[in-house]
């Protein structure tokens, strides 16, 4: 296995799928000649040319809709959102059209499209550019939502998403692009959508997270082990819809305590759904109420030192774990 960055793993997945299937192409703003606003597609235009790596004007509704229409005829567009926050100008296309066309056609039309890009805050770009819409997208039956945290996962999940026959919203993070990790080089390295991964085993409490918050949870878990001898189990959801309910419940039943961590806002966040699921299906196993941490419930603040504490950090996770376990700091 090679040690490469999250960005490189993503690029490798794209390149391998472009090579593997002539119907796969990438489209988005600055993806080709500029090499990608966050360099995810760097070098792909030079390697694959205009047909497979398409620079689009700033018209998200136009080119997402175009991608959806092209997917009806069997193409597999991978559409880059420079920021996932930009999907809102294409909401009718990305959400209304992509989620309903198979259903309303009685199963006659498929929409094998991937819409990918960074969806994270914490980078001082202000409220309009810091959205994490995975909870909203996951609210639409017909859509799938994936939020990988590590280089290996981003590769295996991207390859599965491109090969999937349903629309997949693939949410990355600008804060993860530079992270390194071991990544399998197998061209058919596929991670199933809907399969969580236990990133750290533990017996005292289950921390459930996705995307960048998985790393926050792992960091807090290490510190809690060192400081308080607490063994946290960290469940990385990886995929929001489909969702690995079995792994979540198994872990909760083992540790009997749970803290949900996400960068979303609390109201109708991913945690709200999982919390409901746990109380309904593992109520008798709980030794404490389900707690959750989300971003502070206000638009993303610009001020750099204040934004740092608006999104969940390890310190806050540790504080909340100690609360649940009634450990004095």
């Amino acid at each position, binding site marked *: 296995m090679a040690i490469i960055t999250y960005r490189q793993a993503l690029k490798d997945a794209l390149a391998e799928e472009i090579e593997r299937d002539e119907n796969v192409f990438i489209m988005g703003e600055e993806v080709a000649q500029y090499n990608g606003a966050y360099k995810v597609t760097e070098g792909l235009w030079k390697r694959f040319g205009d047909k497979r790596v398409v620079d689009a004007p700033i018209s998200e*509704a136009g080119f997402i809709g175009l991608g959806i229409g092209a997917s009806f005829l069997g193409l597999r567009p991978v559409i880059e959102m420079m920021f996932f926050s930009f999907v809102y100008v294409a909401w009718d296309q990305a959400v209304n059209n992509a989620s309903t066309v198979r259903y309303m056609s009685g199963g006659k039309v498929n929409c094998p499209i991937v819409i990918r890009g960074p969806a994270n805050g914490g980078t001082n770009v202000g409220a309009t550019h810091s959205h994490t819409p995975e909870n909203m997208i996951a609210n639409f039956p017909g859509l799938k939502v994936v939020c990988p945290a590590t280089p290996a996962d981003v590769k295996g999940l991207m390859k599965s998403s491109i090969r999937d026959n349903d629309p997949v919203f693939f949410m990355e993070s600008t804060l993860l692009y530079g992270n390194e990790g071991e990544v399998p080089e197998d061209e058919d390295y596929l991670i199933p959508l809907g399969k969580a991964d236990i990133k750290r085993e533990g017996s005292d409490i289950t921390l459930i997270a996705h995307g960048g918050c998985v790393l926050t949870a792992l960091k807090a878990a290490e510190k809690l082990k060192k400081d308080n001898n607490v063994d946290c189990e960290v469940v990385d959801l990886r995929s929001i819809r489909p969702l690995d309910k079995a792994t979540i419940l198994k872990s909760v039943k083992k540790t009997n305590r749970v803290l949900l961590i996400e960068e979303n806002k609390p109201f109708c966040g991913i945690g709200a759904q999982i919390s409901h699921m746990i109380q309904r299906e593992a109520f008798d196993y709980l030794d404490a109420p389900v707690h959750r941490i989300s971003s502070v419930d206000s638009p993303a603040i610009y001020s750099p030192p204040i934004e740092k504490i608006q999104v969940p950090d390890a310190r806050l996770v540790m504080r909340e774990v100690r609360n649940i376990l009634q450990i004095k700091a």
Partner: protein
Amino acid sequence: MSTETPETHDFNKGRSRTLEKADIFDYAKDPVNKAMTVEEKLKCFTDMVRIRKFEQAALQSYQKGKMGGFLHLYIGQEATAIGTTSVLGDNDHIITAYRDHGHALAVGMEMNECMAELFGKYTGCSKGKGGSMHYFDPEKGFWGGHGIVAGQTPLGAGLAFALKYKGIKGCAICYLGDGAINQGVFHESLNLASLWDIPVIYVIENNGYSMGTSQQRSSAFPEAGLAARANSYKINFDTVHGENLYEVRAKTNIAVQRAYEECRPSVLEIFTYRYYGHSIADANHQRYRTKEEIRHYQENKDPINVWEQILIEEGHLNVDKVKEIDKAAKEEAKAAIKFADESPFPPPQEMLSDVYHSVDNPGTHTNEGEIFFNDQLPF
């Protein structure tokens, strides 16, 4: 309520709507029309009558409470769907908005499946999951049936983009109403279509009103016409008298050949008229137009009557034959109602199929986990 006569009504400003007899014969001489066989001409007539009888029957069924929701009738606009689709080839595709019954029948969908869909029945073209606004038949090159104004316009570009990507010589016609041209996504689609040389043809079916709002009240520059907006995107455009099937065919064919030969988009604005309201819920459609205006179109510019007269003059049709075609279409529509009436509703568990390809086709995806989140089901 306006008291203007059709001749002075604002609606007609900026629209050239006179259809002289000479026009009919000029367009009749167009190669695409000269090549028409008598059978093809009669088929166009029959299919326009079938659309009208289907919708009249649907309207009656709606009034009897046989269906819910909306019913956007196409009556008055039939020559647009029939004329445009009649020049298409096997590699061409169409997509439209919610006034879609005419297009569905035009590409050969059956009255039975269309009527059953209105009735919400399992035998409907979308198994009762789509309804009036969402007919689909990809095998006949028909990609819906889309409910949101202008929402289909980038999809149409995408269909044509896919043809070009695959190296297939073909085109996609994307229909839209006059109300759709003020939506941003339509302009994004035009820009992309021209920028990337996409063989898509946007057919604006200008029936005068976006729901209850005339162009005078919705367009900043109505005198220029709607198709002229294509000029801003370096796209060829033309206007068409929608009551003249020969003209519809001739001008559509020019756009189709442009798509085939130059891989360039086109915009056609077809002047047409709907006799009923925006939808069945638009009971007040005489608030924004006069009875006289409606009658004017019915008497002078009815696409079926105009085509009937042409075919009678050409000697291909007579009064008896018209009656026969009329009767057959009525009976076909009546049978469709019987079929729809007697068909079952979808079983409740059908609510959960056709949502995800991966769920309906187990073993074909690398998917695990839960994808539906129902704590309990009502059935």
